[in-house]
């Protein structure tokens, strides 16, 4: 298992006063409106719909996002507030030690906002493992926790970068 820390990305919280309003805000960035609990991913950008009127937009550092003058919503830049942990390991082997989420029941377009070791995290599927968005101030503590809690898993050798 490897854990790579990434803090070069863009993250925005997008909130509107109605579902239509959220759809319009995302459309102004050429992004669709996923179902609640689902994630849409395309080159460089991801949209996570958290509640009917609230979504997160996650983008690579060099993706240009031109936000409209916010009419009908609120956009908050959260790009500093999280660290993104790229965890490369078999999710099915490692996640049961970390978080009580039934992976087999989750569709391929789902993301999970839950808690790990008392810390709110967002879990995203990724090539070869999964990504975690964790509050920056809890980042080091969570990495230590993941390292320790998964040490008992069969076939996990640790390398944290």
């Amino acid at each position, binding site marked *: 298992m490897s854990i790579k820390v990434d803090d070069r990305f863009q993250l925005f919280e997008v909130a509107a*006063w109605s579902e239509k309003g959220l759809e319009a805000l995302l459309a102004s960035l050429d992004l669709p409106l996923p179902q609640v609990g689902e994630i849409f991913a395309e080159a460089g950008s991801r949209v996570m719909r958290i509640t009917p009127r609230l979504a997160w937009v996650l983008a690579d550092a060099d993706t240009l996002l031109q936000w409209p003058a916010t009419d009908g919503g609120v956009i908050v830049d959260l790009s500093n507030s999280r660290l993104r942990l790229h965890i490369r390991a078999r999710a099915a082997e490692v996640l049961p030690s970390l978080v009580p989420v039934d992976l087999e029941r989750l569709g391929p377009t789902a993301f999970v906002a839950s808690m790990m070791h008392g810390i709110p995290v967002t879990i995203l599927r990724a090539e070869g493992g999964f990504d975690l968005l964790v509050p920056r101030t809890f980042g080091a503590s969570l990495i*230590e*926790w993941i390292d320790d809690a998964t*040490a008992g898993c069969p076939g996990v050798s640790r390398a944290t970068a």
Partner: protein
Amino acid sequence: MQVSGSRLPSGGRIDREKPIGFSFDGRSYSGYAGDTLASALLANGVSLVGRSFKYHRPRGIFSAGIEEPNALVTFGHDGRRDPNVPATMVELVEGLEAQSQNRWPSLGFDVLAVNQVFAPLLSAGFYYKTFMGPTRRAWLFYEHFIRRAAGLGKASLQPDPDRYDTEYAFTDVAIIGSGPTGLAAALSVARSGARVTLIEQDGAIGGQMLSQPSEGAAADWLAAAGADIAGFPQITVRTRSTAFGLYDGNTIGIVERRDHLGPEPGQTRQLLVLLKAQSIIFTTGAIERPLLFADNDRPGVMLASAASTYLNRFAVACGRTIVVATNNDSAYATARDFAAAGSKVTVLDARPASPLADSARKHGITVLQDHQLLAAHGSPVSAVAFRSGSSEARLSCDLLLTSAGWTPSVHLTSHLGIRPIYDARIGGFVPGSFAAGHFGAGALMGDYTTAEAIERGAAAGLGAACFCGRKAEPHAIPTPDLDEGIARDLPALAVPRRGKVFVDLQTDVTTSDIALSDREGFRSVEHLKRYTTLGMGTDQGKTSNVHAIALMALARDQSIEQTGTTTFRPPYSPVAVGVLAGRSIHGHFKPIRRTPLHDWHLRRGAEMIEVGLWKRPLFYPEHGPDVGAAAIAEMKLVRSAVGLVDVSTLGKIEVAGPDALTFLDRLYVNNLGKLQVGKGRYCVMLRDDGIVFDEGVVIRLAEERFFLTTSTMKAADVQSWMEFLAQTAWPDLRVHITSVTDEWAMLALAGPRSRDVLAAAFPDIATDDESLPKMAVVTGTFAGEVLRIQRVSYSGERAYEIHVGSRRGAALADHLMAAGQPVGVEPYGVDAMGALRIEKGFAAGSEIDGTTTLDDIGLGGLAKKSGGFAGAVLSRRPTLTNPDRRRLVGLQCLDAGRQLRTGSILFSEGAPQRGHGIGHVTAVTFSPETDKQIGLALLSGGPERIGETMLATFPVRNEMVRVRVVSPVFVDPDGARIDA
């Protein structure tokens, strides 16, 4: 003379190719892979394994399972020491070292066996009746000795070096118990495609079938079922896994033991599995009950089915001349097993007839009907006494096996409050009912033939699969042809009147204790349990509870249904605290929250402290040898030059939207209507009951966008409170609330030279007093991130708070330190920061403690006169406007060299010192400015008492100092320094 146990030359499920060496009480023995410690001891002819709890009577192995009351051993050393482990549950591994318990100096010669002489003094509840005099304190004297003699094994006081892990698992259908019923259910569910988890306490699947002869119909059926199970990938079998509790949300608590793998450092010793199932099938089986008779606790007395287990599974014959005493047909199988092994067997059947008597006789077994067992003789057992009609006689034997029926293991089914109900057919309790999605089958439900159990297990599997939304079709499962006797329609329990008849072997509770408990008025079954301690041992009364209830019913002349049972609670069997803690130990007990400057503080050698989950620098040792000296140096630095402090832990929230101003105006006591863009204000919010909740600074970044801070400790509560109001109370307001605590690093520069540092650090941003007046905000950039500077002070000095995106926090600190070097800028810690605010009389967390109002802390002037804010109405209640309330004042310590302590209780000089006084001290510090110990306090009559002398008492340390009541603003009362 020991009961001769001997290993049969063939048979059993042990691996004779793998001999295993172990020791018990220092003597070496040998067994085989597949043995338990108990079976290996019996194979070696060891019959004495422990001494009983109160009377220290010699005890032997009684059962072959988790219900074992006698054979409790300790194994392991130091931190890995494990006491009170039933030898029947210990898998034999090479080098195992076990010790017997509760005896001194040795098992064979136990000094405390003398307790038997004092037996009449040690009956139920003795510590409420005896050892009570001659004085009231006498009990404390006796208690010391009684406590040392109490208990069985001794726990280690050393840290546990082993690793315990936690796993969250999910399944469609969980099946608890892998006997024939559970196996049939598993196959039935798996055929529908649903996920199955089969949970088995033993190291192998099969349940009671493992106690049948290892060759024959049962063994063949088991092998076939095992092969079928292995062929379904969606069946997960967890062996060595005890389901210890059933919890809400269909969650089963399971401990999976890996102790048998040996103490490899870093390897998981035990695993806590929290298994969430959609549907649960309980196939937990039943446990045999013994007959009651005099001296029924002697070594050599066992449960009939246990002896069959030792014979058939472990190839150990526990005796050669055997008496099987029974009141039902199930024990006849044991008689047959031993006859086939060449033992001489006599059956004492309490009933006048049995359908199995004739076939038993054909096997050479002597069957005596209508014979009541009266007593065991010899230790270990060498003879039994019985009565037939009106005559009594004796019979020699070296092993006495008894059966009084089977008790379903209903524990898990009743953990969520469903009471079991009495089934008179089987003389035991069965599950009262099942919640939706829960099913039960097999011996648990009183189905006692194997064929019945398999059929009902398969049916339960179908039910569970359908509950999970699967299409399931009935599939016939073959049943083995076994010649079984079942325990049904039992005669009434016969209890001899003479001699010591034990009901609970582990806690040494006898029939006379139960009678005594009833005579003394302990009428409820819950009282019986606690007064006699019956059922309170590590076996939790698994072989004694039903007898106790029956005896109580007899004593009270009522039915067993009327008597009822005690409540079953988790855990079903003992669970190590370590496995419940898992990896949440030591540094991982709770998560640690680090500011963006954490490493920066450590590089400067800061002494860190915990503030909630945060780590903050208390002081920097470069400024002094200890916190006291360093904090004073840091305070002086701030008041004379400039200091830098990390305030990133403050809660930060963005509130935005067309109705954001309306929302905040309703939330805070302040009138925010006139707050301009680019300005900030110190604001306070109340709880709905009128008490001060929290305070912070609100900045208007734009027409519809606000940024506010909260106190560090209340950040989560304030955010939830705001979201509660926005989503439930005022959902029509278009306002959005986002936590940005982690988004921003926040540093404060405080001191008369602070402006110089800013000018040097940010020459492109106008930070002069005209461009940046008090409470105003300017914006710029730093290293590609947005930078904000607000002129605001927590110390009373000229000060600024600087915000930057948290990834640049450390870089900003370096930049400010470099820019401020010419004027001598230094970092300061939270101790100095707190002391500076005390000198200025600013209310903080110690005064905003959930009991104080705005007026109490001197901030009444902030509130909107017109009300209309949360808490306004109730804040005007008489109890909150009473002039006698404790209000904020300052205190000066008058006794030189003495220390004023936080929490001290204030009394007027000369007043009697009783009760809670007239005030208390909330915060203290040494004040370099005034060269005195000072403090803040909440005092009845508050500001009107300025000038008076009080006594500040600290009873916990027996201290008292004289203080003078003064204004809480000790430094710069005119507030000139903020413009320095």
